[in-house]
């Protein structure tokens, strides 16, 4: 695919850091491609972008892209990103995290980043389990699912990433998946285009762990599941409730214009000390 080559050389640390760590059939690379295409279409300078991550499969992403990149401790990507954004508000901060990273160990930070409306775009790749450590359950593992630590089925209810971050105050909340890639590109581009705390949940298969444990077949079968078991929000609104029962809705759920934290802080400085700029 020669048309893709310019991306490879402009955005990826192509000569240094490949092959990547992700398993065959993993969807994280598709999300990375989507992020790169979104950034390319926005025309952003590489120097202005900070990609920050925590720990896990998704959090390995920063090493492959030629931005300012920060691979932090487990769950803390948003806290590191908050500090960087505060000190240098010109940075466009993207936090890439998995479901365990953002919802379990980092759950406190995502709630408060959303509450503050911190100017960070959080891209959460949700593959329903901890892939890197061998497929243990995460807060987004569906009830009944088998994982390495739920051999008799998951008994805990799961978190809805989008509802949680919407309730906590995020400016923008959306869900896409790695089967509907063009839609995902559009969602990520929209997420990157505004201020405040912005969340994209990207559903993605983990055929190595979650898929195998739950007999969901190979990577192709799991992609087909995303095709068949999700529905776009616009389509869903036209269908009677029984037709959308059990399907996961994709699309933009929240797109509001609340003032982001960095602007709020600058306004505070202007109010208490007019004329001082930093």
């Amino acid at each position, binding site marked *: 695919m020669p048309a893709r080559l310019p991306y490879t050389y402009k955005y990826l640390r192509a000569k240094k850091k490949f092959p990547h760590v992700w398993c065959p059939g993993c969807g994280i690379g598709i999300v990375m491609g989507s992020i790169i295409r979104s950034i390319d279409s926005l025309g952003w300078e590489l120097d202005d972008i900070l990609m920050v991550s925590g720990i896990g499969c998704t959090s390995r992403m920063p090493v492959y892209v030629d931005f300012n990149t920060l691979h*932090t401790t487990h769950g803390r990507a948003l806290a590191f990103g908050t500090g960087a954004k505060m000190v240098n508000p010109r940075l466009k901060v993207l936090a890439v995290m998995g479901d365990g990273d953002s919802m379990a160990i980092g759950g406190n930070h995502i709630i408060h980043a959303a509450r503050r409306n911190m100017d960070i775009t959080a891209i959460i790749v949700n593959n329903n389990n901890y892939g890197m450590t061998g497929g243990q359950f995460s807060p987004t593992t569906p009830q009944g699912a088998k994982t390495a630590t739920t051999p008799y089925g998951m008994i805990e209810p799961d978190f809805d990433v989008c509802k949680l971050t919407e309730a906590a105050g995020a400016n923008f909340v959306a869900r896409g998946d790695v089967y509907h890639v063009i839609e995902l590109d559009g969602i990520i581009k929209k997420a990157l285009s505004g201020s405040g705390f912005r969340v994209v949940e990207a559903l993605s298969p983990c055929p190595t762990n979650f898929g195998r444990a739950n007999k969901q077949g190979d990577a192709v079968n799991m992609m087909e599941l995303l095709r068949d078991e999700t529905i776009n929000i616009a389509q869903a609104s036209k269908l009677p409730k029984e037709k959308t029962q059990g399907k996961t809705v994709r699309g933009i759920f929240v797109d509001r214009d609340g003032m982001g934290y960095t602007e709020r802080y600058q306004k505070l400085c202007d109010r208490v000390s007019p004329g001082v700029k*930093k």
Partner: protein
Amino acid sequence: MSGVPWGETKLVQGNEAVALGALAAGIDFFAGYPITPSTEVAEILAREMPLIGKKWMQMEDEIASISAIIGGSLAGGKSMTATSGPGFSLMQEGLGYACMTEVPLVLVNVMRGGPSTGLPTQVAQGDVMQARWGTHGDHPAVVLAPSDVEECFSLTIRAFNLAEEFRTPVILMPDEVIGHMREKLTFPDEKEICITPQSSPDVPLEWYEHYHTSATGVSPMAHFGSGYRFHVTGLTHDIHGFPTRKVDEVISKMNRLKQKITRRLDALEDNRIHGVEESKVVIFCYGSVYRSALAAQSILARQRKKVGIFRPVTIWPFPDRTVKEMLDSKDVIIVPELNQGQIIHEVERLTSDSVRVVPLQRYDGYEITPEQLVAAVLEVM
């Protein structure tokens, strides 16, 4: 009070002096979480920093606080947090990350009674070994312990300077007595103090190595957004910052982390030594205990009894060589500490069997008094 009252003499609290020292050092970013007995540091900076357009945040917990200041430091801001025991425990993983990724920052830990919630409003020196070894893995540690309000100010500045110079976190550890006491402080004139500026590389963009190997082990650090694009990870990494498991690269990283401190011990060592050469009995102490030791020394002098005092201001790295040189010939070394015995093991490690090392330990939340020290000295004489 607004800003640093340069040149003025005032009655100042220890924690307040820390906050003013941070302002004097040019702090750009503070992130913290309320905890007794350190809270005044955060409160004063919350009042002062927005006035000069600097960034201040109260985070959701101490883990977020240290994470935020690491991010802030990498983005080019001189950064600090302040906490106490339980918060210090929560910060350990982040502290190790900052050691590994060689990020300058200042962590203030005002020591209170532990373990756990312990004695939140009372004094202790129980975090001394945690400051050295609290985070997992081998790592450098630079820890300064002030004994008065003036040092709360000057050592905070020094902590910021050392953090830049060594590209590493520096921990300032006043105990609760020092953090909460008030005494007279004459601030220096602004031009009297030395501030180590943040480093920045001057090589062409494509030549930049984030962990360049230099003679000192420390190289200029670029910041996010400066045009030098680099990768930072807590994974063991090569000179560019990318993860590695190559044996030679792992060894080189680990050796450099250690040697950037051990090869420049002179720049870090800082002791207060009083009457040690002419005394056979020496009190080895740090923090608030030093004040009682000075009082005990003058009480004993009036009785024509000589006792020396050795006080490390920089407690880590420990002043091994000086302690060995000066104290190995003594009869008795009394080591008073507000814990069940931490630094005493370092003193024992460095002295021969012929030297009696005597503990004087208090861990009930109160300070060691001059009278206790006088009694201890008289007992061994």
